[in-house]
């Protein structure tokens, strides 16, 4: 093998390592909006599962929650007083009493207020 070919091989393998290393280190965040949800569940039942210690397998999963809106804050919708759904942007066009379907990432059970929290939510319907 000539020295030149050896040099080219070295450079190209270094470039490959660099490329894969970089894409591994700086991979994109999950896009909850486009992920398929693992489960569709009504709000009171979701809370019930966490209260019975049966919710841990839902942590960090994309889930779809259905129910009636009981509170709307600037970036938060509360469903049936027991699921807290947070959005990245300000909410418009939703009000108390609306029936809603929301997809988001389940981040866990808050036993201070006895609610389940979701983040990165989007309204499905």
């Amino acid at each position, binding site marked *: 093998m000539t020295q030149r070919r050896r040099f080219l091989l070295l450079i190209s393998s270094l470039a490959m390592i660099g490329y894969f290393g970089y894409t*591994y*280190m*700086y*991979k*994109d*965040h*999950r896009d909850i909006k486009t992920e398929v949800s693992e489960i569709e569940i009504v709000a009171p039942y979701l809370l019930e599962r966490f209260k019975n210690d049966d919710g*841990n397998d839902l*942590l*960090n999963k994309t889930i779809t929650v259905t129910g009636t809106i009981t509170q709307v*804050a600037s*970036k*938060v919708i509360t469903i049936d007083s027991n699921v*807290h759904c*947070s959005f990245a942007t300000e909410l418009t066009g939703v009000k108390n009493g609306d029936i809603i379907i929301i997809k988001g*990432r389940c*981040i*866990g*059970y*808050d*036993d*201070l*207020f006895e*609610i389940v*929290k979701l*983040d990165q939510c989007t309204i499905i319907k």
Partner: protein
Amino acid sequence: MKFRKAIILILCFFPIVVISQGRYITKTGEINFEASVPSFEEVKAKNSNVSAILNSDNGEFATLALMKGFRFKVALMEEHFNENYIESSKFPKATFKGKLINFNLSALSEEAKEFVVVGEIKMHGIDKFVELPATLSIVNNTILMKLQFTLRPEDFNIEIPKIVSSKIAEEIDVIANYYLTKSN
């Protein structure tokens, strides 16, 4: 005699003064932490869904942060935080329960007032007694409570591997902001 009866009658019609339990709450408190080391990638995360309750009668304070709710700029860092360091599937939340010393709601004003809050942090399966400085102010019946302190991962049994230890600060700066509103 007539006079006494009159007094009793008047007393009967006086409204009974009930000491109301004043609760100020939020479900969207913010906790930021930073463990950056100069000239390395910043190690910084934010959670905007932190719950807190302040009892304005006695200064009791409780807060809860779900660990999965901490968002990092770099996705891989978020993954390592959850899986290797804080082990958020095993320990999904961190809590603090304590009391503001010498708290008095009527002494609060628009100007930030300093307090000390003592209590226990529960995180990663470890309980630790702490005294933290806090500032409180009140505007339009909303209490703004700010906490700023440092924590050491080793106190909470969080081991930082040698290879990355130079890129993560030994002391982690934590800032918490709560806009607490009166609840009924």
